[in-house]
């Protein structure tokens, strides 16, 4: 019992040091935002993907895997850190990806 106590304490201690901020592989997070009709379809305005790197196309596929009925994501423009991007562009940890349905301002 005493032996397991020790292990438990040690592992708890390690977790509390720096969850998600160690800079180790697998520690990255990207934020994904939804708007307007797309937000209605996903039922949320934001999800976090624990991933170090992905293409915009891969992020789009991830969204569809989470929300198969979020039809609008297929025709949405994508932006990374508030700039429009192409499907093959790379998204990194700490980036914010936004999927933008066709706009209708004015």
């Amino acid at each position, binding site marked *: 019992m005493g032996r397991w106590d020790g292990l438990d304490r040690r592992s708890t201690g390690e977790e509390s040091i720096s969850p998600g901020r160690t800079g180790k592989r697998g520690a990255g997070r990207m934020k994904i*935002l939804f*708007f*307007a*009709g797309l937000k*209605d*379809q996903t039922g949320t305005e934001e999800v976090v993907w624990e991933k170090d790197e992905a293409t915009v196309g891969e992020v789009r596929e991830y969204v569809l895997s989470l929300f198969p*009925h979020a*039809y*609008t994501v297929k*025709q949405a423009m994508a*932006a990374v850190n*508030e*700039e*429009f991007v192409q499907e093959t562009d790379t998204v990194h940890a700490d980036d914010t990806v*936004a999927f*933008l*349905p*066709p*706009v*209708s*301002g*004015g």
Partner: protein
Amino acid sequence: MENKRYYITDSPLNPLELQQLVTKPEAGAVNCFIGTVREFTKGRRTLYLTYEAYEKMAEKKLAQIGSEIQEKWEETECAIAHRTGRLDISEAAVVIAVSSPHRQAAMEASSYAIERIKEIVPIWKKEQWEDGTAWIGDQLEKNRYPRGGPGKEELEE
């Protein structure tokens, strides 16, 4: 907010305030475009609109349009504000003010600005009709989402 030339706000827009932002002694014209909420579209009655924006990006893109205008038309000054939230009939959704030494540039530039807003600024409007609501996908209504989601046909595609 006072001297900001490109902004999103949920408060009523004041065209005079934008006019003042672009006025200068060198200007011989200030063109102020006001986009308002229309009651009837193709015979269908709108009760009110709700605008949503990706605010941070929308302000960046409005500023980009301003830079494009200053590149295309020399010596112009530009200010653009777009409102979000619920807007009733006849309220101003967008105000574009452009000043220039001679009138033609100011008029052309504001026309350019409203077209660009409809292309690149992340703002969306939701129509509230008497019998339903829909996010408007684009100004030609080619991409609207009835009932806020895909219809049967779309899911089956």
